[in-house]
């Protein structure tokens, strides 16, 4: 972790609940994230909602905290917004809890909170409650952020990982593996001179336009940890179906493909933070695809496969040779290999 570069650092006292805590909340959090609910500074945020609620939580740890295309602030906001969106909900309110390591540069904290605020603005959500704790040096790796969020699901929407049906088209919203490679390329020894940006983005707007286009969007999921391979396997298991994907139709950025060749990684298990996989009834697939392509975060949307009837839940890849191989649940962490 970088510290002592002239600017002020976070002290244990910033988390003590006293004057420094108040100062920090006022100068960093409220200033950046201000809205009528947060500004009341009550122990709980009070909001009025009516309907089917989606409610979720996610902890965010990432090294490095700043990476091309984003940082832990943007990531922690979009992560939770996307989990809400994948339930078909309109994301509305977010709570954020920060665990900060003693000595963390105040400038960096400001950058991270500001980035979180910008992402909230883009996603159309309000950060209505928060918490800050400071832990001793060495007890955290810079900063961890946990966000939770709620959203409203329209009465007509029933999205679920168990809703995929034989014949459904499988759509991805764009290139796969960008976030995973963006993070890996900043770790020690990779030294790529080309910047590969994370795709980190809030997908609420994209989902809204998909749901406007069709009432037959059955399943939505963002392929984060474990990548497309994990997500497809989860959906196959939840829906009790087979999913067949045409390997050559999966979109990749050429730099991501190159990095995977070089480091011996499988792009299908790399994390994405601004992509979704949708299962849509075949007859509405083109309509949904059209709506997605109108949207900035769905411009690269393509159909990659279809759902098939099966006794065993399975994910198959149709290879270049036309043969079918199983795409199984990823195991272990992705590490550069030479062999």
């Amino acid at each position, binding site marked *: 972790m970088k510290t002592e570069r002239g600017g002020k650092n976070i002290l244990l006292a910033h988390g003590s609940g006293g004057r420094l805590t108040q100062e920090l909340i006022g100068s960093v959090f409220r200033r950046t994230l201000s809205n009528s609910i947060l500004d009341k500074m009550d122990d709980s945020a009070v909001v009025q909602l009516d309907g089917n609620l989606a409610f979720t939580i996610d902890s965010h740890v990432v090294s490095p905290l700043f990476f091309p295309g984003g940082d832990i602030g943007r990531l922690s906001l979009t992560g939770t917004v996307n989990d809400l969106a994948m339930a078909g909900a309109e994301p509305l309110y977010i709570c954020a809890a920060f665990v900060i390591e003693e000595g963390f540069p105040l400038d960096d904290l400001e950058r991270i909170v500001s980035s979180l605020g910008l992402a909230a603005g883009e996603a159309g959500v309000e950060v209505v409650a928060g918490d800050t704790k400071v832990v001793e040096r060495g007890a955290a790796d810079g900063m961890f952020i946990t966000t939770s969020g709620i959203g409203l699901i329209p009465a007509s929407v029933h999205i679920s990982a168990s809703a995929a049906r034989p014949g459904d088209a499988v759509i991805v919203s764009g290139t796969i593996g960008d976030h995973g490679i963006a993070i890996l390329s900043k770790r020690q020894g990779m030294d790529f001179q080309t910047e590969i940006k994370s795709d980190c983005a809030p997908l609420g707007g994209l989902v809204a336009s998909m749901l406007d286009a069709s009432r037959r969007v059955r399943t939505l999921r963002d392929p984060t940890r474990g990548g497309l391979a994990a997500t497809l396997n989860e959906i196959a298991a939840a829906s009790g179906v087979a999913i067949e994907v045409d390997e050559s139709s999966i979109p990749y950025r*050429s730099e991501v493909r190159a990095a995977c060749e*070089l480091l011996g990684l499988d792009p299908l298990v790399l994390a994405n933070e601004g992509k979704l996989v949708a299962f849509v009834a075949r007859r509405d697939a083109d309509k949904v695809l059209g709506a997605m392509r109108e949207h900035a975060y769905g411009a690269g949307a393509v159909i990659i496969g279809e759902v098939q009837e099966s006794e065993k839940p399975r994910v198959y890849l149709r290879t270049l040779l036309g043969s079918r191989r199983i795409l199984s649940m990823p195991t272990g962490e992705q590490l550069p290999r030479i062999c």
Partner: protein
Amino acid sequence: MCLAVPAKITEMENQIATVQVGGLSRQASTVLLPDAAVGDYVLIHAGFAISLIDEEQALETIRLFDEMTGGMASGGGGA
């Protein structure tokens, strides 16, 4: 047993080459391939250039494929 990827040398200084693979650049040592020069394609393994890629041979291999496939267009072209 050994991953090695074709890359193009775009710059070179003191046996450290900048190599490009599919729009991605990074550095690689040419200690094991002292004759490598800017413009060459090399195989990269564990941060080292280990072998020069022979364009003539590659084209010959592609030509053989083309012959077998009755002149069907190949993915990247043979020019």
